[in-house]
């Protein structure tokens, strides 16, 4: 049965006596208006020098003055091109295909430009382009217009010229050759055939030069393991769509694990088709996106995960390595392993344990399964860094043997755990050059800070997986006096050409059977995909070694990267800072996640205070090596494995950041030896931290049936009415279906278009790409931490995260009845109270539901929000007077009020406050002003543009043409958009699907957003 589970958003909600939770449920605007502050004090009022009369005079005068001033219209200038480029028509968008890899994220993109400026990132859907943009890539368009970027090259902190930089580097290299010092190129993983060739040429010319690859977030152990077995330094590109059983041991493959981007393949198997869907076991410490999506999640420490992995290895390969797995996990892990073995080639195992032996076992298990999802051809080239080589470099630097250090795409002063050693070594380096977008921590201490263009301004090529070749092409002229690292390398090599010519010449050897123009147009070329050969190593030795790995005393700190911040490159991006973490729903912050049990043990707590904001304790983390991070805010995380704590990398940056963005603490300082698991001790620190957490906000007032969920077994065997129950209401003392009762007269929408947006809860992984895409498309403002804390976030689209205990209410009742005797009752109740220890998680994207019978419309006193025939609920901003009645009457809490002017206002110093940042605004969508209500428009500017295009071309609209920003961004296919009046359209079938339901159906609002019941394969 679907609807009798208890869903909750925060631990606080489980406390039935909490008055604050009650207040949050009942009030749309949690805070009381502080009238008492200025009206309560009679003395102050009467002694005020400004009398009421004076006040009225001022008001009258200023009104009259404002009125008179408003009569004069401003004179606007319109400046056309002198020479208009042929392909640019003002008012018409152009799209450019590009492939991008920034050292951490990668994707195949279409960049939308207007009047020569890129404004939005879309996914390239051409055949062969399989990597969709994640939230960070979607937001990277704003990083292009970052006002804190390095605008010209600097030598020793002073603005300089490129010729000076060139000669400085050249003379330094010559000096190094003369003195016999090393020249080191320290770069991120490049995955660029042309750049790699260029570097090889550079090393050929300078025998004293070497190239060190450094990934801020290391995958070195997995690379080492793969290299040992297959002789190639690469990562496996898993195809989860081919797996019917997925076992993940600590791998957050829907998050940042090995670059991520597995959502679309994974989601393909998650939508039940013909009664079948994949099953997913997740063994993990932190609560991750993958754990949230899993059918069965086992929270366990990394030490236990290692044992579990050996245990699975034993069962799958029939080995018998001794394991010391805790008993409480044994049954479940054995079950998973047996099912994995039974699935055979349809099974796959992945692991995120940073241990070479563990990674070897992953290869062994998948080999033994002959897994289809595991393939050694077309490997991922996006991580190449070697921990040992980076450590060697730091030692060399300290020894003084490095003469010239040229860095590109790395920020070791920030990302290295032992940055003091690096800084010490840097002092002994004669010339250090940092090619960087920002004057970041490393650029600040380097001799030369070389300004590089953003990827949207540069030429490059990228081979994300072996056998594919993509071109990064500029979509705008460089905004600043920047030069690419590769162009400087070319001039160091004595070449006079540009890197563009170099790529073009080099590509001809790669793109057999295609042409430069075609590859440039498509953005991607897929060639012959070579398979890695080899495939053997001493796996049993690895299993033995792993099973004997030491279990340290103390807590395990598991470092991870967040969906919003990633490795921290884009810390100055307000969209990403304001993006709430999908799991904790906290924005603008970094925090340590602690399990319920550990929170009690260390007396740490979270509480919701009177204004709806979340407060938390502080804790101090000390690693076994004595590294310390003080005053880390604490979030009590349901599902966190007991004995482990989680902390995200990528925060706590200070250089080249606006003050508002300097949030969180730098967890890289604890990332010792590139090991994401550290043994630590935790101690409570004084004070309370104020979070900007949106989880307690905009609740659906405790009305049920928000999430509908069932198991695959019930889904396959029972009637739809059983697991997708139609709500009944009483009409004339008779029970009738809620959908049949109507307060309003129906509106005929059978003609023309009628848009519906379908959201499949099974496919949604909570990745948040849609949230950022919506920001970019609809000019959604950023409001800042303190405003988010006041429930004033402006996200048109939020992804609600619900927890639910595994047991149902019915199950609970059954258990209660079965209690016999006092001792039994005590233990059973104790167990039942542990609801929050390992909850199930459901994500639910909620935006304006575009009700056919919208409650907001009836209460608007000025008819600013109104119906349309096409199913969209319109909002005319210029008509809105800001009564906020609509928000109060909206059962879904999707309306957002502009409490302040968020553009050109220095109080909100984000991108909309500077000329550069405003270049990202979509000229087709109005920028809202203060005092106006706004909400999701179902991207009416996009649907109207599609209609107009068809009208101009004189043709009917084809299914799939209608899109919204969120449905475009959704790589899992969870969001589908279309016209339900088109009987052939996919959306029409989805709307008629038996899994379909509406949010709060019994309210009778008849929404045009439809959801699909979540089915778990438990």
């Amino acid at each position, binding site marked *: 049965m679907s609807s009798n589970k208890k869903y909750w958003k925060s631990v606080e909600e489980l406390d039935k006596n909490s008055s604050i939770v009650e207040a949050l449920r009942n009030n749309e605007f949690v805070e009381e208006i502080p009238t008492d502050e200025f009206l309560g004090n009679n003395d102050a009022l009467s002694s005020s020098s400004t009398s009421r009369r004076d006040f009225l005079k001022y008001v009258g005068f200023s009104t009259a003055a404002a009125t008179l001033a*408003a*009569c004069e*219209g401003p*004179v*606007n*200038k*319109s*400046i*056309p*091109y*002198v*020479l*208009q480029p042929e392909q640019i*028509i*003002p*008012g*018409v968008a152009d799209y450019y295909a590009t492939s991008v890899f920034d050292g951490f994220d990668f994707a195949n993109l279409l960049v939308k430009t207007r009047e020569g400026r890129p404004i939005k990132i879309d996914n390239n859907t051409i055949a062969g382009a399989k990597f969709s943009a994640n939230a960070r890539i979607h937001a990277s368009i704003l990083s292009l217009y970052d006002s804190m970027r390095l605008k010209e090259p600097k030598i020793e902190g002073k603005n300089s010229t490129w010729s000076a930089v060139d000669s400085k580097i050249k003379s330094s290299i010559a000096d190094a050759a003369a003195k016999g010092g090393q020249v080191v190129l320290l770069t991120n993983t490049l995955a660029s055939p042309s750049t790699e060739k260029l570097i090889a040429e550079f090393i050929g010319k300078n025998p004293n030069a070497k190239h060190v690859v450094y990934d801020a977030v290391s995958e070195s152990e997995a690379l080492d393991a793969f290299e040992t077995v297959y002789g190639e330094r690469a990562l496996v590109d898993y195809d989860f769509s081919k797996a019917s059983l997925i076992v993940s041991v600590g791998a957050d493959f829907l998050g940042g694990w090995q670059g991520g981007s597995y959502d679309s393949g994974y989601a393909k198997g998650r939508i039940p088709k013909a009664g079948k869907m994949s099953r997913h076991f997740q063994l993990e410490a932190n609560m991750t996106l993958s754990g949230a999506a899993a059918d069965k999640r086992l929270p366990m420490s990394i030490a236990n995960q290692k044992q579990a992995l050996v245990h699975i290895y034993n069962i799958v390969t029939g080995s018998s390595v001794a394991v010391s797995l805790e008993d409480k996990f044994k049954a479940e892990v054995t079950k998973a392993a047996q099912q994995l073995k039974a699935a055979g080639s349809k099974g796959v195992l992945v692991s995120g344990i940073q241990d070479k032996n563990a990674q070897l076992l992953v290869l062994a298990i998948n080999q033994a399964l002959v897994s289809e999802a595991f393939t050694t051809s077309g490997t991922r080239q996006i991580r190449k860094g070697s921990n040992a080589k980076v450590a060697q470099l730091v030692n060399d630097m300290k020894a003084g043997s490095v003469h010239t250090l040229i860095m590109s795409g790395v920020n070791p002063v920030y990302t290295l755990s032992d940055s003091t050693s690096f800084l010490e070594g840097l002092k002994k380096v004669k010339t250090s050059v940092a090619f960087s977008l920002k004057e970041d921590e490393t650029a600040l201490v380097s001799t030369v800070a070389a300004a590089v263009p953003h990827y949207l301004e540069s030429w490059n090529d990228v081979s994300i997986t072996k056998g594919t070749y993509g071109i990064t092409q500029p979509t705008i002229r460089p905004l600043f006096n920047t030069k690419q690292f590769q162009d400087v390398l070319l001039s160091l090599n004595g070449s006079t050409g540009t890197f563009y010519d170099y790529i073009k010449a080099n590509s001809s050897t790669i793109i057999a059977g295609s042409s430069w123009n075609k590859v440039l147009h498509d953005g991607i070329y897929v060639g012959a995909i070579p398979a890695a050969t080899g495939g053997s190593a001493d796996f049993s030795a690895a299993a033995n070694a792993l099973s004997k790995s030491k279990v340290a005393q103390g807590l395990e700190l598991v470092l991870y990267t967040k969906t919003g911040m990633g490795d921290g490159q884009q810390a100055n991006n307000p969209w990403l800072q304001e993006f709430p973490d999908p799991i904790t729903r906290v924005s603008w912050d970094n925090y340590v996640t602690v399990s319920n049990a550990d929170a009690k043990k260390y007396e740490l707590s979270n509480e919701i205070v009177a204004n709806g904001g979340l407060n938390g304790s502080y804790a101090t983390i000390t690693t076994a090596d004595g590294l310390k991070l003080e005053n880390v805010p604490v979030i009590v995380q349901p599902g966190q494995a007991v004995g482990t704590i989680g902390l995200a990398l990528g925060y706590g940056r200070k250089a080249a950041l606006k003050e508002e963005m300097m949030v969180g603490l730098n967890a890289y300082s604890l990332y010792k030896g590139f090991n994401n698991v550290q043994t630590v001790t935790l101690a409570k620190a004084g004070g309370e931290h104020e979070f900007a957490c949106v989880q307690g906000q905009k609740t659906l007032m405790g009305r049920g049936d928000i999430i509908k969920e069932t198991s695959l077994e019930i889904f396959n065997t029972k009637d739809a009415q059983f697991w997708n129950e139609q709500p009944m209401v009483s009409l004339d003392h008779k029970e009738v279906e809620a959908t049949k009762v109507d307060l309003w007269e129906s509106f*005929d929408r*059978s*003609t*023309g278009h009628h848009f519906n947006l379908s959201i499949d809860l099974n496919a949604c992984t909570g990745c948040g790409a849609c949230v950022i895409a919506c920001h970019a498309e609809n000019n959604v403002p950023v409001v800042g931490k303190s405003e988010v804390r006041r429930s004033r976030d402006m996200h048109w689209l939020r992804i609600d995260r619900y927890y639910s205990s595994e047991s149902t209410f019915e199950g609970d009742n059954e258990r209660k009845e079965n209690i016999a005797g006092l001792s039994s009752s005590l233990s059973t109740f104790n167990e039942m109270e542990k609801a929050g220890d390992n909850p199930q998680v459901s994500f639910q994207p909620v935006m304006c539901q575009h009700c056919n019978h919208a409650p907001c419309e009836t209460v608007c006193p000025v008819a*600013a929000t*109104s*119906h*349309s*025939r*096409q199913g*969209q609920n*319109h*909002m*005319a*901003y*210029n*008509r809105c007077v800001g009564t906020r009645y609509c928000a109060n009457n909206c059962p879904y809490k999707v309306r957002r009020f502009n409490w302040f002017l968020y553009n050109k206002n220095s109080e909100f110093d984000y991108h909309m406050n500077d000329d550069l940042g405003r270049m990202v605004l979509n000229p*087709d*969508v*109005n*920028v809202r002003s203060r005092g106006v209500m706004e909400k999701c*428009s179902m991207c*009416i*500017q996009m649907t*109207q543009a599609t*209609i*107009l295009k*068809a*009208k*101009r*071309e*004189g*043709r*009917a*609209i084809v299914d799939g043409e209608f899109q919204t920003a969120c449905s475009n961004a959704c790589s899992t296919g969870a969001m589908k958009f279309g016209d339900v009046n088109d009987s052939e359209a996919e959306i029409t079938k989805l709307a008629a699907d038996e899994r379909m339901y509406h949010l709060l159906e019994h309210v009778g609002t008849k929404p045009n957003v439809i959801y699909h019941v979540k089915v778990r394969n438990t």
Partner: protein
Amino acid sequence: MKKVGNHNSISRKLFLGLALSLIFSLTSSAQEAAPAATDAAAAPAAATGGDAVKGKELFNANCAACHKLDAKATGPALRGIAGKYDASWLHKWVRNSSDLIKSGDAQAVKVFEENNKAVMSAFPQLSDGDIDNIIAYTSEPKAEAPAPAAGATEAVPGTGGSDGGVSNNIILGALSLVMLILVVMLFLVNQVLSKVAKANGIETAPKTPTTPIWKAFARNQFLVLVTAVFLLLASAYFVYGFLMQVGVDQDYAPIQPIHYSHRIHAGDNEINCKYCHSAARVSKNGGIPSLNVCMNCHKNIAEVAETTATPEYSKAFYDEQIQKLYTAVGWDKTTQTYTGKTQPVKWVRIHNLPDFVYFNHSQHVTVAGIECQTCHGPVQEYEIQKQFAPLTMGWCIDCHRKTDVKMEGNEYYTKIHDELSKKYGVDKLTAAQMGGLECGKCHY
């Protein structure tokens, strides 16, 4: 003695008025008499016996694309060409100049090099007679522009032009003067008559004392009430009218950095609007043309024809505007090359829709096929472009209510038309019936 004094003043005023009107009529006839002087000395002698009228036709058909009579264009100025070169050489040159250059003819090579090595098209179809006719035309003396009228400066409206007409203002002034004199005379006559009557002892009947009308009005409360209500309503009407025009910039015609005349381009020369405003076909913006679009024609049109000039704007004035374009786009008229030094033109935007309104030109121009003039007025008559329509929401809505959607031949509408025409029982559908009044169609 008073009497005499009165008479005196009347006759003086009459005399003054007569004198004034005479002066005005004299100045106007003086302007009429201004002769259109020609300077015979400037005419070069005709070298060949061709027909200049036929020559003009041929010149316009074949040569005018690259040559002008008096100014350098792509090719050199051709007036008096017969004086510079031998006719038989010219025949050869016109038929195939490249051959002549290749043959090593010194003169031909020189001409070629003098003109930036621009190759002239060959005209083998022209006979010797044809070329002679053209030469005859180019040998005609230059017609001098009439001397500008005294005191008339360019771009100052209201002064008399060379056509000799007296401007309306002067006529009106004279008429009102005459009216004034008549009024004064009437008053004086009345005074004189009453004095005469007094002198003759004729008594006028004394007025019976009645209640003054205002008192009677004030006493009648009903009337006061009605009037007050009326006055209030009337003032409300005017206040409303005043407020409603705030922010409405109908007839806004700002001074532009370049005096661009739509009358000359769209009117006289009948250039299609969308030739220059091509973006209107596909974009939301109508699009102010970029300067390279201007140069498509103005590369060859460096000055306006004599006939283009109007009383208000002289030829020199228009030529100066073309020069402004050249400066902006960086075109050197003498060398016929682009200098690369550009100065984008800062036009003053006339049609300003607020940010919260979405308007798409292509929807109206391409899909609906509406004439540009429907919203922009008779642009082809505008010397100075102005905002024709009020651009208020009422104006938009009104049109959406009245205008039938052009659905014929557009497959997009097929299904919708069938369904909607059935629903409303009509064959034609207005934009409003299509949903063109919904808020979100224009506000997002």
